[in-house]
């Protein structure tokens, strides 16, 4: 498989606590992979390791943004990882709430622009062109994510579902090859979830990017993902297609069996 992300036995300790124990994972090009597991099973920790918020205790993370190129990114700074092309959203929405919707997306364009202090003060032709490019590209992304009408609204005024979509839009603005979504459907009503599903598929197809997502909404996980990986107490306990996971007794026992409602 041509994989964009390869994780080998990733381990993360917090003092004596073992949050992740030797997790292996691969994400293929233009693949949608779901990471599921009960609360506290280490899913978000896994994301934080990938995006450089934590430096993993052991293991390797390799990325290959383009075919052939391969790079180890353990312990690289957060902003460098974003520059390399891994973008993420957050479980508890972290928008720049006093900035407008458009400006939020423009921040995503930051790492693809260059203007420095001198450029900002002199505002030469190059800077002006770059600024214009930032604005237009950002607006384009807003159109694609269905937020164009609220472009000048402060982000905090958006309804919940739209805030989630704005997080995705902002992440897309960094031009990632891999998008990490941390519970994108949390707190959404069924209609919003449907729209989100449609959006995620469209993003994958249009931008040709891979998606790794943490999600509790089983219906969405089942219908979207090419592959599902199940974590429990920091260990990978299963991996496979939706159908395989559905029938795996270990998964049912660890996760689905306890408080899972088939209609959820």
């Amino acid at each position: 498989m041509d994989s964009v992300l390869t994780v080998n036995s990733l381990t993360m300790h917090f003092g004596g606590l073992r949050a992740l124990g030797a997790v292996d994972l691969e994400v293929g090009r233009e693949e949608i992979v779901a990471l599921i597991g009960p609360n506290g099973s280490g899913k978000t920790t896994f994301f934080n390791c990938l995006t450089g918020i934590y430096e993993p205790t052991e293991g390797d993370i390799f990325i290959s943004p383009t075919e052939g190129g391969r790079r180890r990114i353990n312990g690289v700074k957060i902003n460098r990882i974003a520059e390399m092309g891994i973008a993420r959203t957050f479980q508890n929405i972290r928008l720049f709430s006093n900035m407008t919707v458009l400006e939020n997306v423009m921040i995503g364009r930051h790492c693809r622009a260059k203007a420095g202090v001198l450029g900002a003060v002199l505002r030469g032709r190059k800077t002006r062109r770059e600024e214009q490019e930032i604005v237009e590209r950002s607006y384009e992304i807003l159109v694609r994510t269905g937020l164009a009408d609220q472009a000048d609204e402060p982000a905090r005024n958006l309804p919940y579902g739209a805030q989630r979509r704005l997080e995705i839009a902002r992440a897309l603005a960094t031009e990632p090859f891999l998008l990490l979504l941390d519970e994108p459907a949390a707190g959404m009503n069924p209609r919003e979830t449907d729209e989100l599903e449609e959006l995620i598929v469209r993003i994958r197809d249009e931008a040709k990017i891979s998606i790794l997502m943490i999600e509790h909404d089983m219906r969405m996980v089942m219908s979207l993902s090419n592959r599902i990986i199940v974590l429990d107490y920091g260990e990978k306990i299963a991996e496979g297609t939706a159908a395989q996971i559905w029938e795996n007794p270990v998964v049912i026992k660890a996760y689905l069996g306890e408080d899972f409602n088939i209609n959820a």
Partner: protein
Amino acid sequence: MKASEEFKKSIFISLWFMLLTFPILVIRVNTIEKVVEWRWRNMAFIGIGSFLLSFVWRRLLSRKERGRQPAETGNVETLPLGRRLLAEPRIYRPALTALALFTIAFPLLFSSYQTNIMTTALIYVMLGLGLNIVVGLAGLLDLGYVAFYAVGAYSYALLNHHFGLGFWTILPVGGLLGALFGILLGFPVLRLRGDYLAIVTLGFGEIIRLILENWNTFSFGPSGIANIPRPGLFGISMTLGEATIYIYYLMVALCLFTIFVVNRLQDSRIGRAWIALREDEVACQAMGIDKTRTKLTAFALGATWAGMVGVIFAAKTTFINPASFTFMESAMILSIVVLGGMGSIAGVILGALILILTPEYLRAFSAYRMLLFGTAMVLMMVFRPQGIVTNIRRVYRFGTRGKESRPAQA
């Protein structure tokens, strides 16, 4: 709330206040005649006063609450009158022209005493604009900003004293030294936020002042440095009055320069990064913004203005000593930014003019100066925490969306 309930509450408050102030306002021991005076009249004043005040206070609070609700539930917020007036070119153009003419004519119309006060106010405008970058835009609470001001002032005084360098040479040097010290302060506090950052910057400000106070061979200690030359103008010799006017114009020009630069910075890629850093540090980094670099540029660019204006301060007063750079100054500059409106250039200018000029023109009440100042700050923070002028986010215009302009909160 029902009127009777309101009434009961106010009664309770006034009783409480009468009790609290009883020992100091009612009882007086006359040590000469050895009698105790009971001033019951004072108690009545306190009772009636606090009763009425509590009514007004709650009235204002509830009005504020009601005002906030529509803003939170919907987007029916209308622009305040002042801003609507300013959005109208027929009004703001003549207003701006009048303001410019007034600024130019000021030293010709008023005495040199007035001009001096105005120059001081302009110095604080510039300091406020500089601190606004650090506090208002980047959200880094800096309580030692006066240190950079001191760096500028002492760099002129010392370089002039030892090497005879002139004002115009030192002006950019002061700015650069300010920036350098900004970065020096920035490095150790990169990981700190909020209260911790405030404490460290406070310490930094005190360190600079204490060094200046105690390192006699370097800074001449508390006795300061005198006979600092005023800024020159192609070697023309000026009388004291002319020099005052000259420095005034110089300060106006520098303020305009600062406004120009700060405005452009605010509206740039870097300015947006500062604001994003203020809003959410983790998300900001996850979007590819280099936290270290962004914070250091904020500290450096904020301190530059203090360094430059320090040079002017030294040249204006011709004498400096560490007493001019106490924590009180930092607090004053911070108050200017907070009162005026964080992140808003117009707000900071207004804040500086109000906070510096009112005490000068209300000399009659000078005994109550700090009392009034404190009351004003408390009222401001309760009823309008966002400052006099709220910062409204910019609306970007571009090809695909047409040329029509819409306010951000229409």
